[in-house]
């Protein structure tokens, strides 16, 4: 679905000016820790939305590695100025939703957004 629909489903605010709301997002990945973002592994993420509570600039750098499509900050957390600037420079749309991460994932999943990565191989059930 388009980023604008995601904005509506999550009552989100788009905080980067001139964000491309027609961007197609098919996948979601939730991470609160930088190393977890890096665990995306071999995925290329142009159609992936990162769902996170990390408001610092390193989240932009980490997202850049995978060319992630957009980032949404949960729990109403607003990224710091440096993060915003970096996102604008790198043309990554940023959104903020009042919902908590669990609810955000739930709503997106219910609307057909798929997980970026499936289950861990050889992991427990």
């Amino acid at each position, binding site marked *: 679905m388009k980023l604008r629909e995601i904005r509506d489903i999550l009552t989100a605010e788009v905080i980067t000016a001139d964000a491309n709301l027609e961007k197609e997002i098919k996948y979601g990945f939730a991470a609160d*820790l*930088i*190393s*977890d973002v890096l*665990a995306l592994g*071999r995925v290329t993420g142009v159609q992936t939305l990162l769902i996170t509570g990390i408001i*610092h600039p*390193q989240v*932009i*750098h980490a997202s850049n590695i995978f060319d992630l499509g957009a980032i949404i900050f949960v729990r109403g957390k607003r990224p710091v100025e440096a993060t915003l600037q970096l996102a604008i420079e790198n043309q990554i749309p940023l959104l903020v939703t009042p919902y908590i991460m669990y609810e955000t994932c739930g709503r997106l999943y219910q609307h057909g957004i798929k997980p970026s990565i499936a289950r861990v191989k050889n992991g427990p059930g």
Partner: protein
Amino acid sequence: MAQAEENMRFHEIFHIEGGDFTNAGAISSRVKKILKEAGFPGQIILRTSIATFEAEMNVICYANQGSLSLFIAPNFLKVVVEDEGTGISDVNLAMKEGYSTADDRVRELGFGAGMGLSNIRRNTDEMVLTSRLGRGTHLEFVISLEGADRSVPLLSSGG
């Protein structure tokens, strides 16, 4: 080693300041840009960027300062990260996924999951980690270009 140095096509050194959390990832972003402009395949760029990011974060989170060197040779990419700090008391333990010595402050900034070193190992072909307690840590990793598309243009070193 002299032979290998003659074949080195590109070499750049970056400084990393310990505790500089705001810039965490800035160097790996530059490394990614260099590799992208050089025309390396997507997977090579991705693996190198991930490993570089983890190494950069480790210096920022746990050391006083460090340097990261990127070498591009005809058959491989190599990154060397040298830092000054307390070092690692048990390298084997540090390599274990999930093991972390992060303090609360580091954790609240989104770091310290304890995945760093194992993530580096997972994404590279060779990895060497040594440490001297009270002095610092030396990390090297290599990503082989064998079998990858090797039409690498000449790059100017430094700058």
